[in-house]
């Protein structure tokens, strides 16, 4: 509790005790002495409200909640409802205190979810470690990160081995092992060993600064629901105040009835006229949803994107790097006349001098060191493959053109991917299929999205149609468009935008490379962040920090859950207020109920809003 809040608490307690004493004193009803006895606690608890009311009127802020409370309670005193006036002021202050404690706590909770700001960087000065401000470290400087510390800047490990906890950035709980030569990202926590890191980016360009900037600015992109509330609040208060005035004047004038009774009813209106519950709880819900998502490695750039994502109808995926890993791997080995291991061995030896990604994928599949003594010659034939002499056998490994050239007849294969054919002394030995592997979670990601009511899942790729169709079937996608250039992708997305219903939205998921125009054309662009890819972080509306397509379903659940909470709060707060207004006009509700409708509803709505922070994925 802050000092201000403690102060209020003391005033609440003392005013409460004095109010009870005043009520118990045997004073004559409606006597001046009784008024004086109640004015003491009223003054203690309400002086600042009255003072603010006067000050704000001077500043032209008429419909201010202080003013309304002042009018309501002074009005109650005037109609000689002394205990009620004091108690209403007391409850108003209790509610305000509750509200400020709850909001303060929620704000801190959410902020701590996103707190990845490093406090210092250790640098070596004359052989001693000195703590420095991360913002003052320059590119190329060496920093030391001790176990338990947060890595302050992006860099490359030059000394030491350790495991690094990336969960604050990616939501991934398994620590990553880093060694000399590996790059590390700011915001992660160094867990086990001391690391020496050469800084590659200054603080303002580092991952941590970018993410913080992104999340903090998310509050500035307001959701429709938020804008609705702001507009609503503008009209709500004056409308209630005017109806209060009419309620105080018209019935007694028309019926010639009891002025005090109607004024009392009108005062109840004033107590309920602040739209606080909505104005606080709606943005708080969005903020909570965004904070909770960022804890799970989903960065959302604004409340508006939560709204759009919740209505996702068509989801368009880029293939490479999004649904697939974007790295080549041996998919299948089809030997011809020899066994599988032997074929792989021949290929690995033939390709052992090559630096081509395909050669890497074969040697990593082979998994053993190659004994170079067995290779007596090795010749790379550009655009074709490799001719090598291994154990006195002439081995050729390459595409079908190479086989043609060598006069070797090949066995055709229908598998999608890149083929490496191998021949041994002019005899065909088989082929190895190399393909970009589909991500393990991609299939279930699509399934989960369909379970959430996504009508169409579409894949766009520059790959050949056979590779695209194979991936489409494997993943259970509805459509695949292949052999597209980046410009064609925009065109396809525009076509799909016309197909969707007006309420639904189109989501594009890409890896941020080459698809910035599509990311911005879609209703929501989701990028695979691949930790620190600047293009992705800038172009997209939502960034998945760990590149896992399954997170899209979780992001949808968070969006839907947050919106549900927002609507619950809007309906609850407005519902209670209108009912109390009605009951107040009929003379059934008293001022106590009105205070509940004001601050009580606020507190409940705030507590409800906090749930947005902890939305979990449905199965």
């Amino acid at each position, binding site marked *: 509790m802050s000092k201000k809040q403690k102060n209020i608490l003391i005033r609440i307690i003392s005013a409460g005790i004095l109010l009870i004493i005043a009520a118990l004193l045997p004073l004559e009803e409606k006597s001046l002495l009784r008024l004086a006895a109640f004015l003491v606690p009223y003054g203690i608890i309400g002086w600042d409200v009255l003072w603010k009311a006067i*000050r704000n009127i001077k*500043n032209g802020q008429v419909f201010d909640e202080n003013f309304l409370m002042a009018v309501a309670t002074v009005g109650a005193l005037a109609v000689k409802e002394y205990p009620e006036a004091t108690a209403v002021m007391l409850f108003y202050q209790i509610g305000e205190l509750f509200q400020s404690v709850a909001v303060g706590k929620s704000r801190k909770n959410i*902020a701590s979810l996103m707190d990845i700001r490093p406090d210092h960087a250790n640098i070596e000065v004359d052989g001693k470690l000195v703590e420095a401000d991360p913002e003052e470290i320059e590119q190329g400087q060496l920093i030391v990160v001790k176990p338990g510390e947060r890595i302050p800047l992006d860099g490359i490990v030059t000394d030491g081995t350790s495991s690094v906890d990336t969960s604050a950035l990616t939501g991934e709980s398994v620590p990553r092992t880093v060694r000399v030569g590996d790059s590390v990202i700011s915001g992660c926590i160094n867990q086990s060993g001391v690391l020496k890191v050469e800084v590659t980016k200054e603080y303002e360009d580092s991952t941590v600064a970018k993410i913080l900037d992104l999340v*903090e600015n998310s*509050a*500035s992109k307001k959701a429709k629901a938020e804008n609705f509330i702001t507009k609503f609040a503008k009209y709500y208060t004056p409308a209630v105040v005017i109806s209060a005035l009419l309620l105080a004047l018209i019935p007694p004038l028309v019926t010639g009835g009891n002025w005090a009774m109607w004024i009392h009813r009108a005062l109840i209106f004033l107590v309920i006229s*602040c739209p*606080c519950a909505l*104005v606080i709880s709606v*943005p708080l819900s969005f903020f909570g949803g965004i904070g909770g998502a960022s804890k799970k490695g989903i960065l959302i750039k604004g409340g508006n994107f939560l709204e759009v994502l919740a209505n996702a109808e068509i989801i368009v995926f880029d293939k490479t790097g999004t649904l697939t890993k974007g790295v080549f791997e041996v998919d299948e080995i089809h030997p011809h006349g020899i066994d599988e291991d032997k074929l792989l061995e021949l290929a690995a030896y033939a390709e052992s001098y090559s630096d081509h990604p395909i050669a890497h994928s074969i040697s990593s599949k082979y998994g053993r060191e190659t004994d170079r003594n067995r290779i007596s010659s090795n010749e790379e034939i550009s655009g074709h493959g490799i001719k090598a002499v291994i154990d006195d056998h002439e081995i050729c490994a390459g595409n079908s053109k190479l086989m043609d050239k060598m006069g070797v007849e090949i066995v055709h294969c229908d598998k999608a991917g890149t083929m490496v054919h191998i021949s041994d002394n002019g005899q065909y030995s088989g082929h190895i299929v190399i393909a970009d592997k589909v991500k393990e979670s991609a299939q279930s990601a699509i399934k989960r999205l369909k379970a959430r009511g996504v009508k169409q899942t579409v894949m766009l790729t520059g790959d050949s149609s056979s590779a695209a169709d194979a991936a489409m079937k494997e993943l259970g996608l509805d459509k695949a468009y292949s052999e597209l250039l980046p410009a064609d992708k925009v065109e396809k997305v525009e076509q799909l935008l016309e197909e969707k219903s007006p309420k639904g939205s189109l989501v594009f998921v890409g890896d941020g490379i080459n698809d910035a125009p599509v990311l911005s054309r879609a209703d929501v662009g989701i990028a695979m962040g691949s930790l620190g890819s600047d293009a992705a972080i800038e172009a997209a509306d939502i960034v998945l920090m760990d590149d896992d397509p399954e997170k899209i379903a979780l992001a949808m659940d968070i969006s839907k859950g947050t919106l549900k909470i927002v609507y619950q709060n809007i309906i609850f707060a407005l519902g209670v207020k209108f009912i109390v207004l009605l009951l107040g006009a009929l003379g059934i509700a008293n001022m106590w109920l009105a205070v509940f409708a004001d601050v009580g509803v606020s507190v409940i709505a705030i507590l409800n809003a906090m749930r947005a922070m902890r939305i979990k994925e449905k199965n």
Partner: protein
Amino acid sequence: MKKVFKLIDLDCANCAAKMENAIKDLPEVEDAVVSFMTQKMTIKAPDGTDFDELMKKVVKLCKKVEPDCEIVLK
């Protein structure tokens, strides 16, 4: 040009909304956001705007709406 300012003792969301509307009405301001959640104010004005001058007006406006709230000017 966009600048962000920290706010101290902004303890009422409705006031934040009122401050935001008041600042938006200033002719030299393109857009303004007062975030109750992050306790920050973002002001967007055309390039070349004299921000020191502008902030004097903003501070004055905010004092009217919510006298307890302080804007940290750097």
